[in-house]
């Protein structure tokens, strides 16, 4: 069990740490714990975890500051545990380098999926392979997208958007991250353009565009492409 990826949990609630440890160890992860941001930063540099689960409500330091401290010297994926009704905080966290977030309370399956997505993201072979999810196949080398084996015609912007989401499959991307990536840094962050493109893309790739199964909206935060 100890050879699995190392996950550092930074949370001040002993009960949650115990629950996470039990579930994660059952799935073969090695778990380290920290109860304060200070301790968490120490552990992050000492134990060299593969992924960090960071609670936003730490006694000694704000979650955002802790994240920035970690991002100061490490690219380790960070999944943030937050509470509802703080979309702005989430966006800020994601824009500041968090890889994903989960709202308490959450199901363990969801957390495991996020962990996997974040861990997969650091293995850099997706960009020139083939991505497939729920009948949707993207062949990056040939620049061909098919759904149920039927080719779909996409405009260059739609393709770029789809490619960006597919490369980060399973992970949430904020509106700003997408806009910066597609239209370049410093563009006007007008999310309504983005919404129009997402709508068009959904019409082409989703079975039921009004009830999307692949391209999911994260309310108030951004979009996520599920890898099913």
């Amino acid at each position: 069990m100890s050879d699995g990826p190392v996950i550092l949990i930074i949370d001040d609630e002993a009960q949650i740490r115990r629950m996470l440890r039990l579930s994660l160890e059952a799935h073969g992860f090695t778990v380290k714990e920290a109860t304060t941001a200070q301790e968490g930063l120490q552990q992050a540099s000492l134990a060299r975890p593969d992924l960090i689960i960071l609670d936003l409500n730490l006694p000694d330091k704000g979650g955002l500051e802790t994240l920035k401290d970690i991002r100061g010297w490490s690219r380790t994926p960070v999944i943030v545990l937050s509470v509802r009704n703080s979309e702005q905080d989430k966006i800020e966290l994601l824009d500041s380098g968090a890889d994903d977030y989960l709202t308490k309370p959450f199901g363990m399956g969801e957390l495991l999926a996020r962990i996997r997505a974040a861990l997969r993201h650091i293995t850099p072979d997706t960009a020139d392979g083939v991505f497939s999810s729920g009948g949707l196949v993207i062949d990056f080398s040939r620049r061909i997208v098919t759904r149920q084996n039927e080719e779909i015609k996409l405009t260059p912007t739609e393709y770029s958007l789809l490619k960006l989401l597919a490369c980060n499959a399973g992970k949430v991307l904020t509106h700003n991250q997408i806009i910066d990536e597609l239209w370049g840094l410093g563009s006007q962050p007008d999310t309504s353009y983005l919404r129009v493109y997402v709508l068009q893309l959904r019409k082409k790739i989703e079975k039921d565009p009004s009830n999307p199964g692949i391209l999911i909206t994260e309310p108030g935060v951004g979009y996520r492409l599920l890898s099913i």
Partner: protein
Amino acid sequence: MTGESRPDPEALLAAIKRFEDRHNRGKLKIFFGMSAGVGKTYAMLKAAHKLKQEGVDVVVGYAETHGRSETDELLAGLELLQRIRIDYNGIIIEDFDLDAAIRRKPQVILVDELAHTNAEGMRHLKRYNDVVELMDNRINVYTTLNVQHVKSQSDVVEQITGVKVRETVPDSILDLADSIELIDISPEGLLKRLSEGKVYIPEKAELAAARFFRKGNITALREMALNYVAKSVDNDMRDYMRAQNISGPWKAGDRLMVAVSPSPYSEYLIRWTRRMAFNLRASWVALYIEKQKTLSDQDQRCLTKNLNLARELGAEVISTIDEDIVAGLIRVAGQRNITQIVVGKPLRPYLTDYFYGGNLVERLLKKSGDIEIHIVSQPSVMPKKKELFQNWTLRGGFNEYLIALASVIIITLLNFILVHFTGYWTIALVYLLYISVAALFIGRGAVFLSALLSSVAWNFLFIPPLLTFRIGKIEDIVMFVTYFIIAFIIGGLTSKLHEKEWALAVREKRISGLYEFSKIIGNAVDIDESISISVRYFEEIFAAETAFILADDSGNLGNAEHEKSSLDIGSNGMGVAEWVFSNRKAAGIGTETLPQAGALYIPLNSGGYMTGVLCTRRVDGNEFTFEQNNYLMNIAYLLSMRFQKDMVSEKGRKTKLIEESERLYRILLNSLSHELRTPLTTITGASSSLMDEVVISKPETRNSLVMEINRAGVKLNRLVDNLLDMSRLESGMLKLNLGRHDISDLASAAMRELAPDLINHKVIIDIADDLPMIHMDFVLMEQVLINLVYNAVNYTAPGTEIIIKSNLHQDHIIISVSDNGPGLDPADIPGLFDKFKRGVSTKPGGTGLGLSICRGIVEAHNGTITARNSPGSGADFIVTLPLNNENYE
């Protein structure tokens, strides 16, 4: 003078104020006539029809057509306001319904007969009060009036026609009129209408009418009416010219002052001054100079009547205290920038004139400087003073005369002894000494009596030949005459000095009374105390019962007397108070509005901010005197300022309280959401893990997860218990289920409950063996112990010791929970047990309820709970419960 060509700033300001007042209130148009029957009502209705044609919303509030057909016809086509019906001793009287008119709120309302006296039980005494209230409600009013009903003209009318005019309208009401339309008809025309029966005359007044409607009278009345309207037109024009800076023939800035006394003659002086002031377009002041002498009831009534008359005629009424009328007049004239003084012509010479150096008029002329003096002689019809010595009141002074008599007798007896040693001339000096001393203590009359008696006694008993009034020697005659004069002068001068001092003292006393009042009011901590102080003060000073009705936060009048009030005003009184509050005018006894209300209602108005209504009533049911009224108004002003200050700070306090409770609410929500989420996250996470195939295959992990779920459930339950306990404590619904219990039992029960949380801590229980059983609610006290130990677990590092100790200390049981953790932040210790109080440096989470619940429960047991840092390290929480605890519940 250059000053005359420039408009006087005060006059301009007055004109602006008039303009603004008029702007903010309805306009008043008066259809003015010389007598009944000239067609005022007819003209008014005609005008109403014209307005209606122009699309103006016009309503007939009250019109008296007296059954004249041509007038009746005019009523058709106009909206008539329902009249109010009042049952007056079985007779139904119809009258103008003021409230209905205000509710209807037309643009223009017609209200006939301005001088009408309202039926008893109506809000106002007079119809013109109704009209003013209508105007205050921004309703324009058309009304009618005869010249004989104008207050300043009524005495002239009485002189001309010999008919006493009872219903009068103050000139100040006429000043409010925006336009006065004269309805004129020739005397012949009026007489013709009269003979045709077109003039309404009440049956019982026919005889008087015959005397009244004589051609000579009618001509005189017509002249008066024309004159009056012409003057008001003239004044309007002057206002206009002043505003437009057109130079005119007036002398700018005149201010008149009339000296008012209790004499009936004053009434004439007041009317004279009013006419003079009106013609000059000047403001005027009525001054009453109070003397030491207490007035007889009749004089007091007469004075109040005179002063009320002056007020009705538009004077500013002031009073001052001075023994010397001339000095008082000159002093007030200087203070008030008076340019002309009106005094009555003295009826007869007074003895005292010789002491003062001339009579009142002569001395006034000497001292008046720039001020013009009008000396008005008394008309012959005025009743003479009945008795010469009525002025020489014995009331209150009678004792002084007795004292004077007795003292003279005693001094004389002493002198009988003295005369053997000194001779009879020295006796005169002894008498003089007595007189100068006596003048310091007794009134002037008594001093003069002493002087007279002593001179007689000296002459009769001491100057030879004895026991005769004859004086033999020439030097004795000189001596006697000299003595007589000196005695009178010394007596007069000393008592004058004494009286002056007295006047000064009274003036000072009044001012210092107000000052004292403002001081004690200033010291009151809140409105409640100010009110109870005032109520007591009113009782002492005025022998009056008092009620206060205060405005509420939204600026409306509250619906009950303040609880500290000593007077119950009832629902009728509340109605009066409402009126006073919204109209900002005094009402009730001694005023023209609702005088039958039985008490005086004074608005508490400070700088336009209404703080409430003061209602006061003398225990004997009498009106307040003029002086008392003045004093009351001053006090009301002081109080309203004080109340305003309090109300503003109260509002601030309430806002703060709301902010504070919002802050607490936020803290509670935040901590609740954290406290709820932790166990919920555990339950959700663990239970979803249990569905995972990987976990299903691992029984150990499964068991651990189920245990976590269980613990989370217990934690949630504890939170809910705490919330429920808190709300029970808050609402006072906490009922102790008392029984005799053992402390060690309590501790072990708490430990069982906390077992899952205590894995990492070592708990030492140190309870004395000989502790008696104690009366308590077991479940609640267990909760206290659980909360304390749970806190210790949460705020200390794993491995820390927690010590639960209990022992007997005198008649108390002490239970302490100590840890050796980091201890408390000294800044947190005060208020540690307050609701939602979270430590300065504590971690997030926790509701901040635990300790406050502990305190609530312990206090319900008549115990105390305290916290401190133990001398070594760590925190001590100490619960003290009384041993003998059976008598509470």
